[in-house]
């Protein structure tokens, strides 16, 4: 770290977003990161850039401009088509060394949580994991990064005062999306990309898709979630009726996923997906802290539970004590 102390921190400028793409599509979290980056950049008085890696990046560059990126750093190479740790780490580290961003945000996806830590060590700086809130300190303009730890039991605000860039991975589904402005333009900057033989030390043999419903959960305006109170996996059929009537989707507690009732991609919570729909129905869900961590910022929470002391009622805007098999059909009748 002795080198670091000598780093001139004032050379580091601008907020960067890692524009994670898969199969040529931006991940939804990238739009959320751009929304957040805009806010942070406005407070510091700087601009927003996206770093985009892939084998073909033209269309995505325009999309990033439309979502508010002032600059897009493009790394284009056949080896960058799919994410691989060594390839992406090398390219982005070089870009960081050359252009010196002050802040870098990455989505806390399975890719962002692999890339972020590698970059942080290579750039000799800190990384705050899985942030749910970012703020600029009004006095020193440094970033304050708030994140859950201890299984959601504790929130910690982390700072990285003496190292640059300041880096965070950000939990998908938490930040507000950037606005899309059709035709908005920016500056595209090509990065030099080359790889030595054997420099990329992993090989992808194949990519297997098992479920593709994730996006629908983070984007849903209405979510009807079920827990162990359903009693059996068929209970989700009833929830589906309500979800479909509202134009939303179903969700689940982890206990149902662990019981094999429903796929993990439906799980809401600390180790599942974070959601913030207009209405979240929690049906037969007790309200464990790890579940609350993933749905507490929904606009309206409606809890249906047999047990009037269930902790889920503590966060519910409307609570209904009763058997979900009586209450849900009755709600369906009213709609």
């Amino acid at each position, binding site marked *: *770290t*002795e080198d670091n102390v000598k780093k001139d921190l004032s050379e580091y400028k601008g907020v960067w977003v890692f524009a994670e793409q898969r199969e040529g599509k931006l991940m939804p979290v990238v739009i959320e990161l751009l929304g957040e980056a805009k806010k942070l950049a406005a407070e510091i008085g700087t601009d927003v850039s996206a770093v985009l890696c892939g084998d073909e990046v033209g269309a995505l560059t325009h999309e990033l401009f439309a979502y508010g990126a002032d600059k897009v750093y493009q790394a284009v190479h056949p080896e960058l088509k*799919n994410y691989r*740790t*060594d390839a992406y780490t090398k390219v982005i580290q070089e870009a960081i060394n050359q252009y010196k961003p002050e802040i870098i945000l990455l989505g806390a*996806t*399975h890719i962002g*949580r*692999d890339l972020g*830590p*590698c970059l942080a*060590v*290579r750039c*000799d*700086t*800190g*990384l705050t*994991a*899985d942030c749910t809130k970012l703020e600029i300190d009004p006095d020193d303009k440094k970033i304050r990064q708030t*994140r859950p*730890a*201890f*299984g*959601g*039991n*504790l*929130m*910690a*605000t*982390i*700072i*990285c005062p003496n*190292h640059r860039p300041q880096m965070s991975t950000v939990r998908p589904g938490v930040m507000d999306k950037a606005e899309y402005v059709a035709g908005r333009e920016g500056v595209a900057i090509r990065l030099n990309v080359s790889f030595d033989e054997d420099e990329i*030390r*992993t*090989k*992808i043999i*194949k*990519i*297997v*898709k*098992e479920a593709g419903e994730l996006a629908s959960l983070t984007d849903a305006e209405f979510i009807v979630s079920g827990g162990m109170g359903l009693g059996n996996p068929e209970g989700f059929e009833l929830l589906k009726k309500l979800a479909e009537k*509202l134009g939303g989707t179903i969700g689940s507690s982890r206990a149902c996923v662990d019981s094999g009732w429903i796929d993990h*991609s439906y799980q809401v919570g600390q180790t599942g997906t974070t959601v913030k729909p*207009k*209405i979240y129905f929690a049906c037969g869900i007790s309200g464990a802290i790890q579940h*609350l*961590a993933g749905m*507490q910022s929904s606009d309206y929470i409606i809890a249906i539970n047999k047990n009037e002391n269930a902790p889920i*009622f503590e966060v519910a*805007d*409307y609570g*209904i*004590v009763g058997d979900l098999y*009586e*209450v849900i059909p*009755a*709600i369906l*009748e*009213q709609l």
Partner: protein
Amino acid sequence: MKILVCVKQVPDTNEVKIDPVKGTLIREGVPSILNPDDANALEAALAIKDNDPTVKVSVLTMGPPQACEMLRECLSMGADDAYLLSDRAFGGADTWSTSNTLAAGIRKIGDLDIIFAGRQAIDGDTAQVGPQTAQRLDIPVVTYVQNVEIDGDKVIVQRQMEDGYELIEVKTPCLLTAVKELNEPRYMSIYDIVDACSKEITIWGHEDIKLSPENCGLKASPTQVFRSFTPPTKGKGEMLNGTAAEMSKSLVSKLKGLHVI
């Protein structure tokens, strides 16, 4: 083949209580356990050893002297030997410092084919230490590993993704981080518990692993905890009354009144 598993002793976060006034953890009476993902990592290593008894499995932790308890547990599950990196200078480490210290310990142990870690520890919850340790050792890393097959000096792993998995080939030496889907960890056997008592735990401080106090622990950590607090809960709303039909009717009319449906 030599395999090392990085293991961390953590408070059982299911049992953690928070002091609502001070916003700090009440650690008293909270049991310390082997981090769940690390149990999967150790199981993966032991399963490789089951197939090939010439494989040696070591475990490594950085932590206070109490972590010996957890190391004994790992030895009782079947690990051959254990290393504890323990020093006041290591305290207060963020993941930058933790990975720096672990990497120094691993270099001293030397000559490893596969290093396993857990994906994530249930206290810090960052999932950063595995990939960062690999970077420091300059070996390839695959995170979120849900299946492992050994094929000579190659390892074929499934890397879990949000919507499926990638099948990845990587050469040894490499570092893999385990998720819970990887396997079912075994229990300690009575035979092994007895046997474990005779196994050695090597304890090293900063001088043993040639790390200056400036490069470990709180001092070297780029991140700092500025403050910690209990998550604000959304206040309790309104409990509806009446029969199922009455409550449903009142719910729907309230939601319509709020223009959310």
